């Protein structure tokens, strides 16, 4: 079907809005490709519409909304008295801001407590920069000392455990030499040592602690040492 220029103009928006059948589109484009009058119009309008579709909205003046609200709801009364003083609070009374403020207050409370400020017995002197610095310095050293002691204690305990484990893995001399025989209940064969095994372990533990105390004299004052030190001294003395 051959289209005329008038038909092209009449269906121009259908073409640009993509509201044409395939056959119509082919006929439309067939005419435009050969028409000196229609081709520039279609190209120009196509570009124009593309540009118009991406044009941003114009920003109205900010006073417009307030003018509309004044015209419809009436003039707003100026806020006075307590509302003027605490009016700002309404703006921040949203849940999100309240949660944020609570987090900040909690952080400050933790910081102040760490820096030695007592909320039960608040003193202005505690908030002096020099006092805050001194307390912070003291707290930092205390934390460091506690941390070091904790790590050292862990190492001592770990060492004891590893020694005990080694000891348990080693067979006793009797168990290693004498083959075990079938034993009837209540019958003794005279091959077991008279000393209970638990007593041997206790002796071994004391021995290990003595060795550790010798190897680690610096740590002798920490953790388990006070309790065992007395017993070690008692054992060393005949």
């Amino acid at each position: 079907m051959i289209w005329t220029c008038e038909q092209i103009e009449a269906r121009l928006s259908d073409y640009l809005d993509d509201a044409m059948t395939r056959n119509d589109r082919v006929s439309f484009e067939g005419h435009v490709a050969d028409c000196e009058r229609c081709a520039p119009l279609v190209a120009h309008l196509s570009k124009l519409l593309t540009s118009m579709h991406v044009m941003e909205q114009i920003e109205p003046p900010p006073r417009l909304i307030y003018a509309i609200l004044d015209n419809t709801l009436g003039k707003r009364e100026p806020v006075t008295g307590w509302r003027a003083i605490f009016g700002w609070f309404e703006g921040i009374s949203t849940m999100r801001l309240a949660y944020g403020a609570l987090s900040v207050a909690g952080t400050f409370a933790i910081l102040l407590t760490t820096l030695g400020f007592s909320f039960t017995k608040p003193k202005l002197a505690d908030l002096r920069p020099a006092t805050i610095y001194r307390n912070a310095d003291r707290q930092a050293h205390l934390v460091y000392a506690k941390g070091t002691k904790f790590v050292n204690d862990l190492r001592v305990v770990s060492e004891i455990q590893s020694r005990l484990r080694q000891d348990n893995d080693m067979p006793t001399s009797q168990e290693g030499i004498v083959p075990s025989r079938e034993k009837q209940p209540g019958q003794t064969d005279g091959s077991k040592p008279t000393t209970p095994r638990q007593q041997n372990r206790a002796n071994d533990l004391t021995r290990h602690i003595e060795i550790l105390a010798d190897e680690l004299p610096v740590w002798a004052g920490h953790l388990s040492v006070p309790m065992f030190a007395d017993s070690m001294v008692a054992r060393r003395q005949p």
Partner: protein
Amino acid sequence: MEQDAQLVQQCLQGDGSAWEELVRRHSRRIFNICYRFTGNGGEAEDLSQEVFLRVYRTLASYRSAHGGFATWVTSVTRNLLIDHYRRTKRDRMTDSLDDAMPVVENKESAGRRPDQQLLLNELSSQVQTALTKLSPELREAVILRDLQQLEYIEIQRVLSVPEGTVKSRINRGRIELARILQQMGVRPS
């Protein structure tokens, strides 16, 4: 759309904050329609206020079943613009473009380069000039379709004319606009 209907219900129950929310949601769009139609920032501002005053007074007559609130407000705007056009027709004979208030173009450039944005702003201004030379029927059709990007069915509701008339007006408006811009020597890139 449902939120608008809910806000309207709250307004009718006397909730001022719901009305404020409605104004905030639609004032920009209404101002743009008024500005594109009149080509004057001051007039657009006055007309926008008038639109919302009329909407506020006739809010009880809004029925959500007959279309969205946005379409209804646009329809009110369109009627007011046509009234305004007829009312000021005589004044415009002696009007000068010199007293047109400048308006602030939106600075949100959606990732465009500054030179592209500049060209687009310039074209926007030229389109605005060309729009004022169209007849009001064609102008409103083009504004609603190509600047507000309303669907044909929405335009049909706003203008209260048959679909064929809407299509015809948009088509003629576009062709007319393109010819005016060509005469102005404008070539969109």
